[in-house]
Every structure is written in C-alpha cells, then in structure tokens.
C-alpha cells in the first residue's frame, strides 16, 4: 500500500496578497492583481503589444525574513523563501526536532533569475566589459537557487531538487514530492513553485510569441479572463506558493493540522509541439485519467477542478475538451475555477498556487470566483465555471497544469478523513 501524503502548511506570495489569509480573502472577493506594467525604463512600453501584468509591488525580503544570504538570490527565490517561511510556520513543524536528512525541498521554477540575468546581459552587451559581470550572476540565475536557498534557510538536508517544466513546474513539484515521500526518501518535503520574470526581455518574448493579452491594456483588471468569449491571451504574473507535504504517519505523530491529502499525480508528454497543445484534448484527458487512477478515485467522485485555464483562446478550449472526455455527464456537477483570472499566469508558481487554492477550498468549502467570466464561450463552456464565489463541499479535487514543451500534469487532492 502506498504511503499516504498530506498537506500540513501553506504559504504564498501573490499579486493579491502576501500571506495565505490576505490571498484567500482577496481571491474570495474576486479581486484582480493585474495592473498596468509600471515601467521597463529605458525600454518604451509602447514597444510592447501587451502592457498589463500581475506584479508584486514593494517587495522587500528583509521585511519578511532575517536571512542575509537571501540577498544573494534573485527575486523568484526570495519569493520562495517568504512563502516557505509561512508554510513552515503554518505547519507547526519544528525543524530543531526533526531529522534534517528526512526533510526534502522540491521547487518548481520556469524561468529562474531573470531580473539579475537580464540586467547583467544588458550591461555586458552595452559596455563590453566582461570583467564587470557580477560574481553572483551564475548562482543567482541558476534555476535551483530557490531550492538551494530554502534548504540553507530552513535546514532541510534531504533530497533537494528543482523541477523545470515551464508553466507546470510546480504541479510536477507537488507530484514529485508525493513520490519522494511515497518512496521513502523523505518524511517531509517543502514543496514550492516560484517565478518572477516580468522583465523587459521575457515580457517581450511572450509578446512576440503572441501569447499575452493585448486588448485590455487600458483596462488591466479585465485582461485575464479564462473561459470568457473575449479572452485574448494570458497575463504574465509573478509569485510563489509553498506547501508542506508529509507522510500521514509523520503528520499524525506530531498532531499536525491537515488541509488535504495529496492522493494522486500523473505526468505525461503530448510529444506534439513546443507551445501548442493538441487540439483534441486527448492527452489532457489521459493525464487526468492517470492521476485519478493513481488516487484510486473515479471521475464521478470529483467535486472541483482548479483548472490550468490561462485565458488563451486555444488553451482553455482544449482543457474543457479534455475534461469533458473524462467526466462526461459529471461535468454538469463539477465546480471549476481559474486562479489565473485573479493573479495572471505565475508560470513556475502556478501549480503550487493552484494547489493552495484547492487545499483551501477543501478546508473551507468555498471556491473562489473566476473573474471576468462575463460571456461564456460555447467552445469551452461548463456549468460549474462561475464568476461568483461558490459554497459547496469539496471532497475530491483535481489540479490541472500544462507546460510548454508539450508536458501535462494533474494532481488529485482529497479531503482528510475526520
């Protein structure tokens, strides 16, 4: 029998709140974290087709954490430090009482240290002075700087891994943390996702890919609108989410509060296209089926889906197609929500943040609204998508997450038995 794995702590740094309490309040109120992009000085914003993003303003690590080494890592890893600090405190885990080698860290990150990376590249190419490239460049841009710094800050000496699968990175981090505990490599895994790349180059790259919303530059809060007929691309966001996963026996032993059980996970590749999903949704459907099977549940038992739902015209259609193939008539009874309607697409953080929203829905019986869902699109309509908050018990929930590189993840959460 598989070891059961539960979530005992949550932490978040998001465009609508730093801290789970503030995030959840804003999410349930349907507050948008999307604003006009402040400045890419000296780059003229007019040169960008999209000029909206979900940004975290006035973030200062030292206000959240007394950890001087944290100044050496880039913004995304600093977000992860703050989210993990909250999650650890929330879990009540006492690191001084734990066996450090039994605590792992698995972080999902899509882009890495782009703030410093872009600054240094720009200076190098402008000034042609290689000896003035900052000595901290390499450790700061490296994707695993986040998982590394979390271990250093909190003393976790178990497996220390980084999962980079673009937009689905931290959904896979959740799945890999589940497998890490199931396989006996660790009792506890500090699981996180983080990205902070609202930077001139990355933003321009997504603009050039024509992946971002461009029709709502004058009304930023309207720009992220998953499943809505007028959606025209995703909104780039930034942030971090952290969840403490531990084996059920370990959690029971220390009488920890349990938000939810991580019951199942599946990872697949569509082996199809770097940035376009298969339009028939069959691979998404297969991923969901595998995750439900891993959890030992049937489609008829699922109450809620935290959808990937980035607000791109193709992506949302394909996801609903895949969901319909698996759930058939159950779709009529499923609640579905899109966290990205509130905070944009936080890339490597998205799966973890979706996981946090799902864990909170299981705990509270409340599902946050999908904002800007004003006019259902017949191509991706489902009755359980709502622009209002929903109150309903959630026993089994599914988190969908798909990434560039043709990869899919699905994670199943279950309400803990009393």
């Amino acid at each position, binding site marked *: 029998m598989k070891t059961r794995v539960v979530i005992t702590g949550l932490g978040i740094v998001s465009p609508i709140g730093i801290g789970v309490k503030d995030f959840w309040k804003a999410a349930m109120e349907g507050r948008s974290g999307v604003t006009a992009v402040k400045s890419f000085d000296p780059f003229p914003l007019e040169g960008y087709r999209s000029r909206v993003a979900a940004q975290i303003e006035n973030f200062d690590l030292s206000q959240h954490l007394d950890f*001087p080494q944290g100044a*050496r890592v880039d913004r995304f890893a600093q977000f992860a430090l703050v989210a993990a600090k909250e999650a650890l405190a929330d879990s009540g885990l006492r690191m001084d009482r734990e066996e450090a080698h039994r605590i792992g860290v698995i972080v999902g990150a899509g882009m890495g240290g782009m703030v410093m990376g872009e600054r240094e590249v720009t200076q190098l190419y402008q000034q042609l002075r290689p*000896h*003035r490239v*900052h*000595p*901290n460049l390499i*450790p700061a841009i490296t994707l695993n700087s986040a998982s590394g710094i979390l271990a250093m800050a909190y003393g976790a000496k178990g497996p220390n891994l980084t999962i980079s699968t673009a937009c689905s990175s931290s959904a896979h981090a959740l799945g890999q943390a589940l497998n890490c505990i199931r396989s006996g490599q660790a009792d506890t895994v500090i699981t996180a996702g983080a990205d902070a790349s609202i930077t001139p180059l990355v933003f321009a790259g997504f603009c050039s890919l024509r992946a971002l919303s461009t029709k709502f530059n004058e009304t930023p809060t309207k720009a992220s609108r998953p499943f809505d007929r007028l959606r025209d691309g995703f909104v780039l966001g930034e942030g971090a989410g952290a969840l403490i996963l531990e084996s059920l026996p370990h959690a029971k032993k220390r009488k920890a509060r349990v938000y939810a059980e991580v019951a199942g996970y599946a990872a697949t590749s569509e082996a199809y296209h770097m940035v376009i999903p298969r339009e028939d949704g069959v691979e998404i459907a297969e991923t969901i089926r595998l995750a439900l099977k891993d959890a030992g549940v049937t489609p008829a038992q699922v109450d809620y889906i935290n959808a990937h739902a980035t607000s791109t015209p193709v992506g949302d259609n394909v996801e609903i197609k895949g969901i319909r193939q698996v759930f058939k008539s159950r779709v009529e009874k499923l609640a579905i929500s899109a966290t990205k309607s509130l905070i944009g697409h936080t890339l490597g953080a998205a799966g973890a943040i979706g996981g946090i929203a799902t864990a909170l829905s299981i705990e509270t019986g409340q599902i946050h609204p999908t904002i800007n869902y004003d006019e259902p699109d017949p191509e991706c309509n489902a009755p359980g998508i709502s622009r209002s908050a929903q109150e309903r018990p959630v026993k089994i929930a599914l988190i969908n997450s798909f990434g560039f590189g043709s990869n899919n993840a699905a994670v199943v959460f279950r309400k803990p038995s009393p």
Partner: protein
Amino acid sequence: MPAESHIADQIITALAEYLKRDKKSITLDNRLRDDLGLDSIATIELLFKLEEVFDLQIPDEDLKGLVTVGHVVKYVQKRLAPPPSKKSPQPAARAKRPKK
C-alpha cells in the same frame, strides 16, 4: 592619486555598506574572513565593488595576499600609484606582475 587615508576610507565605507554595520567598527587590522565574516564569495563580491570604485582589475593571483582590510588598502594604494617611468607597462599588464 587619492591619499592613502582616503583610499582606506573608501574601502572601509564599501565594507560597512556590504556588511551593513557601522564603519567605525571596522579597522585596518580586521581580517576579512576571521574578523568580518566574509566567506570567499563575499570577498570576491567586495573586490568586485572595489574594482569599480577604483577602476581596477584585480587578477586572481593577487587575491591570496589580501587577508586584512589593511592589506586591501595597501594593495589598492600600490595599484593606483603612478608608474615610476615611461617604460612601465600598461595597467592591465602591470596588474599581472608578482606583488612581492
């Protein structure tokens, strides 16, 4: 050429900023690692800063001798000294000369 005391002041100021502590608490005989707690990467970051402040390039082989704040001050002072004659090599080449 800046006076030695001015160089010392600039270096101690840079150190105090880096370490986030009062510059009065830093003395020339403080050892970078043992007294000020700079690990090897922190020392490299400090030297990176000093390279900018004094428009220098410090070659790897010179790092070994820089144990105390005073060593750094003396080193920078020496590097900023004007060449003794017209035959002196250019700064980049001069930087590679053995220091002892």
